[in-house]
């Protein structure tokens, strides 16, 4: 550690003003603050002293995704060997999935961080850490067989159009990870939906339909009988979103550290449950009659609720707003799932839709608060 510090100190002057690599200052700064706690302090004005800067926040989220990631790697292998009908040991399954998922993660980070660094350089900003989380979330929400060049394009699109045009980390309207997925979904639908893509190198004869796929065509029998499979995640699907248990482990980490908002998580589940119950009331087909709690374990509902909806940048900022924001996400997600035949999974679209509405919700929450306080003032002065 000491040697590293000395080395950084030695090359530092070259990156300061007037140095040889002055232009690369933000790149140097990014690596230095990534490796060591920054020693900069502010001198004037009031400020909050808190050890939880953005890097710590982001790292906690990355750690919280690890259970889902590890399980996802194993499940990719498990599903593959299941489809080709070979039975191999646990480590073979895991290793197969690891080799499948690793390139996706590498491409996601290299492309995303490359663009982030380039923009920081051009604008003379510090490099922001926002992509650390998006970079791990994107591999978790794509099918294991996604062609890497498609992934690279969608990551570039999400980082540039979804984030940098608005001014970088913290300024984006939409969740970047979901922007990438939405781009893939609309640009290359044949690689992002249907029952061919959810198992890595699937054998042709094997049905690769996800529970959502079954449900979409009205075939509810396999869905009803596999609640436990869906809960634990032994189903085909996107890399990291099959296992509700692993995702909930991540949720515990987020909640314990206070980084994910419990208000949003709880209200997303409440919204989904409410919509499920409403459908149960008017059950005109099998899908509508599906018990409401099944929606939690199918598809990306849990993953979206825990990791996507709680993105502090694109979610509502006010506490009341968070309840409404989350509730509507759950509601719309289940609504799209059950009613719209074109989209088997509604979570992505629901979250993106509510991302757009989040500032509006906040606006009215703040306005209502101002009104209420004005009223109180009038009553007092009267």
């Amino acid at each position, binding site marked *: 550690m000491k040697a590293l510090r000395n080395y950084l100190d030695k090359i530092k002057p070259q990156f300061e003003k007037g140095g040889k690599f002055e232009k690369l200052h933000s790149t140097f700064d990014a690596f230095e603050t990534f490796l060591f706690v920054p020693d900069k302090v502010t001198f004037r004005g009031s400020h909050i002293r808190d050890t939880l800067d953005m890097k710590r926040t982001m790292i906690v989220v990355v750690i919280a995704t690890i259970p889902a990631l590890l399980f996802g790697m194993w499940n990719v292998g498990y599903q593959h060997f299941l489809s080709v009908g070979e039975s191999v040991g646990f480590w073979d399954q895991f290793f197969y999935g690891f080799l499948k998922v690793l390139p996706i993660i590498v491409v996601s980070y290299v492309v995303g961080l490359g663009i982030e660094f380039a923009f920081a350089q051009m604008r003379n900003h510090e490099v922001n850490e926002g992509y650390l989380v998006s970079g791990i979330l994107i591999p978790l929400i794509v099918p294991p067989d996604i062609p890497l060049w498609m992934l690279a394009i969608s990551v570039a699109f999400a980082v540039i159009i979804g984030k940098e045009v608005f001014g970088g980390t913290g300024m984006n309207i939409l969740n970047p990870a979901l922007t990438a997925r939405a781009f893939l979904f*609309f*640009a*290359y639908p*044949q690689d992002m939906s249907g029952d061919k893509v959810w198992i890595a190198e699937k054998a042709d004869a094997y049905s690769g339909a996800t529970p959502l796929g079954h449900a979409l065509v009205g075939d509810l029998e396999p869905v009803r009988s596999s609640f436990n499979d869906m809960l634990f995640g032994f189903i085909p699907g996107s890399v990291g979103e099959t296992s509700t248990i692993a995702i909930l482990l991540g949720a515990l980490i987020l909640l314990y550290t206070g980084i994910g908002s419990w208000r949003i998580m709880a209200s997303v589940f409440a919204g989904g449950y409410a919509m499920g119950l409403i459908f149960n009331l008017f059950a005109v087909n099998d899908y509508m009659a599906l018990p409401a709690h099944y929606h939690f374990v199918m598809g990306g509902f849990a993953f979206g609720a825990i990791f996507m909806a709680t993105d502090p940048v694109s979610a509502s900022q006010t506490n009341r707003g968070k309840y409404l924001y989350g509730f509507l996400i759950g509601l719309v997600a289940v609504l799209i799932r059950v009613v719209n035949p074109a989209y088997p999974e509604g979570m992505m679209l629901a979250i993106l839709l509510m991302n757009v509405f989040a500032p509006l919700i906040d606006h009215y929450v703040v306005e209502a608060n101002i009104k209420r306080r004005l009223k109180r003032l009038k009553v007092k002065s009267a």
Partner: protein
Amino acid sequence: MSTESKQKEPLFSAKNKKLIFNPLSKDNPITVQVLGICSALAVTAKLEPAVVMSISVLAVLSIANVVISLLRNTIPPRIRIIVQLVVIAALVILVDQVLKAFAYDVSKQLSVFVGLIITNCIIMGRLEAFAMGNKPWPSFLDGLGNSFGYAWILIVVAFFRELFGSGSIYGYPVMEWLGIYGVGYKNNGMMILPPMALITVGIIIWVQRSRNSDLIEEN
């Protein structure tokens, strides 16, 4: 208005040149004035309709500008919009009929959008802002300039959308000739959807503003 200065102005004076060249860049109807967006989104999925649309707008706008400019002193101000609309509508019907006669397929593709040239904000905007107060020749140049400004944005957007969305340029399957489908390349379905037109126009605006700093508003 009869007391106009008798001094003869050269046909392409500096002022008149500006009328043509400003709308191409820093006074572009789409990227700066943000007019005519709806048709820019609707007809740019392929190059061919975009080109035909550009030519139609060129014809309508430059002729309408001249006609309105000739009539400008006789149009009662209170009904000027109606008069402008009558002129535009007549020209649009002409264009529509010509297209139906000579380019039926494209006319089918453009469907209502030819008729909707009437509501293209660029045309009304230029008639109202320029032709009503200027002589026929500058008005004609203004019409030309603005249509070219509109046309090049349309064509650039359509070029990228057709290239990446359908893998062709003006109907020629370029991507297939290059043989990159063989290595796993696929057309980007999102490029054909209207939102990508908006995003492409946005990117053009972004590039333009970062090269041209006097376009950036103070706030």
